């Protein structure tokens, strides 16, 4: 089987997975007990006569198509999805889901992508160095990494928020920018954004370093003792060359770690954003679930699904190029 064919086949599988995932995204919010429309109407119309309330309620139901049988709702949902329409939010009526996600997503991505990358690179360098040097450096790095990665993330986040945000007061403990600041491209506003950015960023980098360093250290120690390293030494290769062999081969499983981190970053942002009150997509998902906002839940979960699937697909394709052993295995599977 050629590699192109392999990629195509993988692609079709991912498409099927995507279809099933979108169906689940449709079903799951509808299983949450409670009628979302009546909650909204009750919120909007306190003090309005109940007869007109009833009419508002019915028009909402009709607008959202909730009076139709579930199967027809599903067909509508899929049709709209195909056209890239995610519908209108219940809780923020009449704001579109696409618009809400469009505003929130940059905050999440700007926080997560740099944090994951920085944490991943630092973690791998530290892990490889600890494996190569051993001794004191390793004796300190290993337990610290273990502690940071074993601690539940929200505990770490809350501790950092309390110590640096509240107790020492070095950084604002919560929010994306100050309430009083007016969003603009001025120097003051950038400083304000960065100071709010620091705590969630550092906390994310810390957990990423922890888990990556442990993995890289183990892999490097394993590679250091392989036969090809001994053989290279006996053939007179320099240590510098041998270290580059080790680093490259130990990196391979770590790339999975990176792809998984990217895949789960939107879903994983919920805790960070709730703890630090950050205006990203995680906060919106949390609010949407609380208010039974079907379209918004669907939209955000869809974004999460796409990132997970895309990261995995990309990984599947890349591995064939990075590791000849995997490529050979894939071809055999046929």
């Amino acid at each position, binding site marked *: 089987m050629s590699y192109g064919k392999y990629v195509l086949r993988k692609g079709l599988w991912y498409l099927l997975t995507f279809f099933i995932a979108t169906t689940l995204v449709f079903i799951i919010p509808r299983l949450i007990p409670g009628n979302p429309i009546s909650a909204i109407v009750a919120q909007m119309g306190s003090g309005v006569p109940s007869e007109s309330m009833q009419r508002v309620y019915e028009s909402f139901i009709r607008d959202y198509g909730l009076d139709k049988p579930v199967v027809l709702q599903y067909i509508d949902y899929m049709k709209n999805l195909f056209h890239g329409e995610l519908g209108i939010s219940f809780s923020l009526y009449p704001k579109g889901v696409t618009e809400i996600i469009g505003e929130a997503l940059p905050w999440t991505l700007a926080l997560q992508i740099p944090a994951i990358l920085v944490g991943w690179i630092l973690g791998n360098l530290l892990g490889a160095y600890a494996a190569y040097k051993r001794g004191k450096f390793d004796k300190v790095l290993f337990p610290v990494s273990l502690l940071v990665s074993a601690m539940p993330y929200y505990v770490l986040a809350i501790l950092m928020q309390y110590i640096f945000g509240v107790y020492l007061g070095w950084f604002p403990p919560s929010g994306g920018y100050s309430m009083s600041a007016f969003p603009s491209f001025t120097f003051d506003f950038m400083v304000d954004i960065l100071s709010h950015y620091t705590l969630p960023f550092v906390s994310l980098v810390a957990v990423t370093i922890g888990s990556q360093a442990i993995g890289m250290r183990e892999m490097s120690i394993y590679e250091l003792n*392989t*036969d*090809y390293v*001994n*053989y*290279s*030494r*006996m*053939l*007179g*290769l*320099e240590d510098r*060359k041998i270290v580059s*062999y080790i680093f*490259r*081969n130990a990196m*391979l499983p770590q790339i999975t770690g990176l792809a998984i981190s990217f895949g789960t970053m939107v879903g994983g942002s919920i805790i960070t954003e709730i703890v630090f009150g950050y205006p990203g997509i995680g906060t919106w998902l949390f609010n949407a679930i609380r208010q039974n906002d079907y379209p918004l839940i669907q939209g955000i979960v869809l974004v999460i699904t796409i990132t997970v699937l895309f990261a995995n697909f990309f990984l599947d394709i890349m591995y064939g190029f*990075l*590791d*000849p*052993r995997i490529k*050979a295995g894939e071809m055999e599977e046929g």
Partner: protein
Amino acid sequence: MMLEVKDLSASYVLPEGEIRAVDDVSFSVDEGEILGIAGESGCGKSTLAFSISFLFPPPLRHVGGSVLFNGKDLKNFNDRELRKEILGTKISYVPQSSMNSLNPTRRVKDIAFDIFRAHMDISEKEMYERAKERLDLLSLPESVLNMYSVELSGGMKQRVVIALSTLLGPELLIADEPTSALDVSSQRIVLKELKKLFKDGVFKSMIIISHELIILKHLAHRIAIMYAGELVEVGETERIFKEPLHPYTKALIGSVLEPGKRVEREKIPSLPGAPPDLREKITWCRFYDRCPFADEKCKRKQELVERDGRLVRCERGKDI
């Protein structure tokens, strides 16, 4: 004399104790000679082979003695000089575990280039040509250069490793169990190729290590028998096979299965017991517990002495 090993001792220093895997070993290899080293698993053959390189990566440690290569004492070379000037160029090595000896994520070509670059400054084109020539000598097609180790069969991997190890035309090749991971037909091919390279003068001398005496019988000019970290007998191949002087050599030869001969299952002789624990210091004959001829006389230190133009570590001599 090309290689002279004098009173070489090396230990694995582990938290639970020191294991003297090579104990006071002396031997030499002449130019144009193939020396076989035989002994059962765990007797220190591989450690000895490795110690000749004088690298001693921990937990292996040099305890005493010296290795002279063309008269130069390897003790006087530091790690960098050893790698640059001796290993891969003058003394090369075919490892025991050829199956995993190729970096899985590098093409054969790139591994070859790395070896060239570690020792000399020549163009990529020349490196490619020379690698191709060497593969050709081992009946491997040029396309192998572009392959990864996972794309090679076991026998091919072993031949690729031999090609890489002899890339720079070393004076001495140390082959550590070059056939142990192969099936019988691949074994034959590999041995034939090694013989051919030797005849073609790709390398001048060879130390070949094996636990199968039969392999050495057809290849080596002289054989050194190793037991529990010590050499117990060194001599010309034919004479050792005809008339072993050490009881252990005799037992080893007795367990050789010659192809073609019909052997009944019950009649295959085997040596009972196991070699001594090398963590303990043994002051008398190390073969004592397993030797069928052992008596009170053997309970004292046995020296490697010359007898009949051979070296042997047993006082009894011919009456075994």
